[in-house]
């Protein structure tokens, strides 16, 4: 059982049967929630598996609310605030040129506001264009 608030089966999904249905349909859960999290799904590939192991999992040391879950063909990742993948760092780890557009080949979904910033991939809960500007390195 996950104790991580962002875990794949945390919160209401931790319940089963009628207890789940009751909480899912409860009045308090029938209004719009607000979440500070972001979600990322990455296709499993040679490069992505290395990025998950060498770059994303180590982020848990500083951010224990980061969740990484193996969902068969893809990795499901959820974290509060923001996640940044620096593709210059990935280039060094992978031993080959790897741009942010190479990374995007295997990013299967994002929930949050995603953008490229130079050779970085940024997924943030900020409302880009409303709360903050869409940054550019140029």
């Amino acid at each position, binding site marked *: 059982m996950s104790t991580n608030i962002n875990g794949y089966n945390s919160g209401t999904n931790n319940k089963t*049967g009628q207890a*789940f249905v009751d909480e899912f349909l409860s009045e308090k859960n029938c209004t719009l929630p607000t979440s500070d999290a972001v979600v990322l799904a990455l296709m499993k590939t040679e490069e992505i598996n290395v990025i998950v192991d060498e770059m994303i999992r180590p982020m848990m040391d500083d951010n224990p609310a980061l969740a990484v879950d193996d969902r068969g063909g893809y990795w499901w990742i959820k974290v509060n605030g923001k996640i940044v993948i620096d593709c210059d760092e990935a280039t060094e780890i992978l031993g080959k040129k790897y741009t942010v557009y190479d990374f*995007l080949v295997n990013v299967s979904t994002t929930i949050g506001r995603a953008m490229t910033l130079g050779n970085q991939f940024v997924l943030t809960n900020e409302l880009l*264009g409303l709360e903050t500007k869409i940054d550019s390195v140029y």
Partner: protein
Amino acid sequence: MAASNLAVKQALKNNPAPSSVDPQEVHKWLQDFTWDFKEKAGKYPTKYDMDVNTREQFKLTAKEYARMESAKEERQFGTLLDGLDRLDAGNKVHPRWGEFMKLVANFLETGEYGALAGSALLWDTAQSPEQRNGYLAQVIDEVRHVNQCASVSYYYSKHYYDPAGFTNMRQLRAINPLYPGVKRAFGEGFLAGDAVESSINLQLVAEACFTNPLIVALTEWAAANGDEITPTVFLSIETDELRHMANGYQTIVSIMNNPDTMKYLQTDLDNAFWTQHKFLTPFVGAALEYGSRFKVEPWAKSWNRWVYEDWAGIWLGRLQQFGLKSPKCLADAKKDAVWAHHDLALLAFALWPLTGIRLELPDRQDMEWFEANYPGWYEHYGKIYEEWRALGFEDPRSGFSGAVWMLQRGHGIFIDHTSSLPFCPTLGKGALKPSFLEKNGKRFAFSEPHGERMWLQEPERYEFQNFFEQFEGWELSDLVKAAGGVRSDGKTLMAQPHLRSTDMWTLDDLKRINFTVPDPMRILNWQPAH
């Protein structure tokens, strides 16, 4: 070496000539090449005011886009044509799952086609060069996705042990009672009406919300049921969807600064959410739970994670500070997430000859799983399935039909005029509050008040001839034959009520049911209970 040569060499060493230009630098330059929008007004102007300064979050150039998409295609087709062929992947799929993929791949193909037109509509309407850039890339993505969905059907038709249905599901759309619901959500919803409303339907709701369970989470169910074909293609499709989601978000950003037009947003969002939900919530849930032998988790939990907690919380919830409110239909949508897919599955079993696929009634193992996760399921649905099985549901000599069983007991099947989907007022457990309305001498059925309200506001938008109106008076076997629902021997049905290769139903067996398509609006004097 001459001193001048040495000087040049030293200068190049100190200031090397660039071997390439950063694509994001190119993107920045390209924004200076703006179009003359005064001369080029959109063919379909929007009631919203779209900001000319809206940005595009991925800073795409054509070169990087083409390189990225080329890599996706090489990887996807390399996996399909080499790796999965060697693994005989097509024959390792559980038949229950393989059969439902005949519908999933085909219906999604329609969605991608509608998305192609919808994103082109947005490209034509937007005023910001960056925003147009994002929409244009989406148009090209959608061409790719149409081909990818067709590729799933094509691959299955070559490698799966029962290709019937993968080969001609487009033809069978004509009689599939679920297909008008696809057209309503993915066709009309994505590409008709106001361009910004199309964006809300397509990008903010269908793509940012429902593609996550439909295209991402579904791959986990696929893999659990032996299907590595679908994850290979669908996860690659979804790598484009995140840019489409960003397009949808920037559509909202582009209209938020003008309160005169912002006032339309809430109603358009409510309508779009209900439109997409009415088809996708029951269809995806039924495909996952009734199309699988090995189950991953209850659909209601997937819906809670992907639709409610993450999409509603991370997308809509964060926009509440700008005046966005909870969709009025949210509570009903959640009730549907628990029950509507069971209602739809019941109708699919009742109308199986029209589906073009082989369906298998839930067995004891399934029933235990359904009851454990949806308490009350057995009393409501399980007993019906047990009775149908005992009456010869699977037996081609029985002359039994679930649809006839329902009609004989007063359980009418109607078509909800707004969503275009069938519903049963007396056997449904989803968010039903049926009503009949009359306009110009014609009666229309509605399964709930949200769709009824949408129809009352824009009745001309929902004009279509439903299945019963279109085929009233047709004998069932004649209808299936005319629609191409038979195999190469000219008599065995493509659709079957079991997964065995023996005891296959033929046109003669279907004729034995002695069923002529009625229009329930005429024969059943049914009125909603008050």
